[in-house]
């Protein structure tokens, strides 16, 4: 599979946009404008962008609580996304969801499963609809290394395998679940090695190499569409910041943070594209400026959006049913 120059530039643009977007949200949190905490996927962009770009608009996604750019790639408007993060009325969930519950039905984004164990059963069910109705769509389900150690992982992997469901499982292994180090928490070194227990292919890939992530997910998607069932892909990457905006991150050795910073996915890819003559200084600046402009617009839209009326907090508890 060859990746066109155009697609490479798109990958680069989205990674830059994703980082700036999350940096902006992080700042808004520190300014006290975002209720609760905010989780960034800074340092993990190659995984979130690479995997999501491998989908079509029709495909479903369950993103994680990091890597908000996945929502944008799938089709969400950055302004409405930021508005949801701020809890405003114009957000995708009218302010009810926030950053860890963003869903956008129009772009087949099923939403983050913030009780992390729920991603597996929900993805299995969504994939079941695709298989039964033969829709030609797949479900991309993303989850962390920490979430890979939960019981529903076993149920979901096994069921998706025996039913040959069109789902691609992507583990974003950023080495940590809050303060819990994966190497200490897991009996085996690689999440994807567990794939053999479910008789499905497993791939451990460099999650900071966007081309590898993209290609691996793309192939798994083809496989799923061909009726050959699920694939488990583990993208090894690193959460450069703390767990959330309020984590001072005292449990990680500085050398480890420094070592991974040298492998920053955006810097690395930028270097590669320069070497290939696809990017130059001028284009880099142009892309950065363009992305910053998009983020600024999103921020402005969100900050100027109204707060929802408090009494709207009890709307949508039930759907008023009409007989179908």
């Amino acid at each position: 599979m060859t990746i066109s120059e155009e697609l490479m530039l798109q990958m680069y643009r989205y990674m830059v946009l994703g980082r700036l977007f999350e940096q902006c949200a992080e700042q808004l949190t520190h300014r006290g404008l975002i209720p609760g905490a905010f989780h960034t996927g800074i340092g993990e962009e190659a995984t979130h962008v690479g995997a999501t770009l491998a989908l079509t608009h029709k495909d479903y996604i369950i993103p994680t609580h990091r890597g908000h750019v996945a929502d944008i790639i799938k089709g969400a408007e950055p302004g409405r996304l930021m508005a949801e993060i701020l809890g405003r009325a114009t957000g995708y969930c009218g302010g009810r969801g926030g950053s860890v519950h963003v869903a956008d039905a129009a772009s087949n984004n099923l939403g983050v499963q913030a009780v992390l164990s729920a991603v597996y059963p929900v993805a299995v069910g969504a994939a079941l609809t695709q298989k039964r109705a033969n829709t030609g769509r797949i479900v991309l389900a993303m989850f962390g290394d920490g979430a890979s150690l939960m019981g529903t992982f076993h149920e979901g992997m096994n069921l998706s395998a025996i039913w040959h469901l069109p789902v691609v499982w992507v583990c974003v292994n950023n080495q940590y679940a809050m303060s819990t180090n994966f190497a200490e928490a897991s009996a085996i070194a690689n999440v994807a090695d567990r794939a053999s227990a479910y008789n499905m292919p497993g791939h451990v890939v460099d999650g900071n190499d966007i081309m590898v992530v993209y290609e691996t997910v793309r192939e798994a998607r083809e496989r799923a569409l061909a009726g050959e069932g699920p694939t488990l892909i583990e993208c090894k990457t690193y959460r450069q910041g703390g767990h959330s905006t309020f984590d001072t991150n005292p449990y990680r050795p500085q050398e480890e943070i420094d070592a991974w910073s040298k492998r920053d996915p955006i810097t690395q890819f930028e270097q590669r594209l320069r070497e290939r003559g696809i990017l130059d200084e001028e284009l880099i600046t142009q892309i950065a400026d363009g992305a910053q402009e998009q983020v600024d617009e999103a921020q402005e839209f969100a900050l100027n959006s109204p707060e929802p009326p408090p009494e709207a907090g009890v709307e949508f508890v039930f759907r008023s049913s009409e007989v179908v």
Partner: protein
Amino acid sequence: MTTREITFRDALNEALREEMAREEGVFIIGEDIYGGPGGYQGAFKVTKGLAEDFEDRLLDTPMIEQTIVGAAVGAAMTGSRPVAEIMFEDFITLAMDLLVNTAAKTHYMTAGQYSVPIVVRAACGAVGVGPQHSQTWTSWFMHIPGLYVVLPSTPYDAKGLLKTAIRDDNPVLFLEHKKLYNVKGSVPEDEYEIPLGQARVLCPGDDVTVVAIGYMAGLATQVAGTLRDQGLSVEVIDPRSLAPLDLETIFQSVRKTHKVVVVAEDCKTAGPTAEIAALVSEACFEFLDAPIGRVGARDAPIAHNVGMSEYILPDAADIHEAVQSVIAW
């Protein structure tokens, strides 16, 4: 309307059959439910014979309660209308997170972008299978915004309510009492539905109101018959669903009788009777001529031993006694 006598089990089976025929997206997912030749046909045989016409709509899974309910949610979010079967209500605790945090909150969290039209059927009630296979839990679920809780007490209600539950766009917990599966009752030949949240007055009366839920509704009706012979007129109301709850029918009756007893098989402490009693006292305080009576199980797990379980569970005698005591007050 022509009717025939069929069992509660067959009434459920008919509802499932009709709804699968009506709508492609309806399928059944659960453990040992395959209802074809060589299939187990469900622990209580509710899916019996369904595979003859709906071979690919009966999805047998391993023992994965969380995934049964969670997969139903994911399927519902993408356009299916699954019916999930949990073998014993006791096991719903495994799926509690998916039911409470995922099924019940998705429509809300996504501001209505996604809905979750699922029915989770589970067998409740004690038939001597011991502490971990005998529970009737309802107040946990009526406590959850975004979840409906339905408990039919007759074959007629079982069929009509299950059909409506499947057609409803919200998650519904549908509890089937094990002692009712073999009970017969008249069910119309023709198709019908029963709206959720509509109580049924099982027998009209003027002296005291008995609100009885699920299996207890039948016992309360028996007690009303006995008391009628003694010259006491008891109105028995079966709410049929605890969420939505038809308060108006209950309040109207209390305003007429001025006395009320609430009955459910759950443990009495913080059971559904507590909530209904509180609502009645809030809305009808000035009409009440006696403290609100409550009948429920003693606060213990349900023992395997028959004598012990009978001691723990509420029965007709308990209802009788509670009615007499509000009358005597």
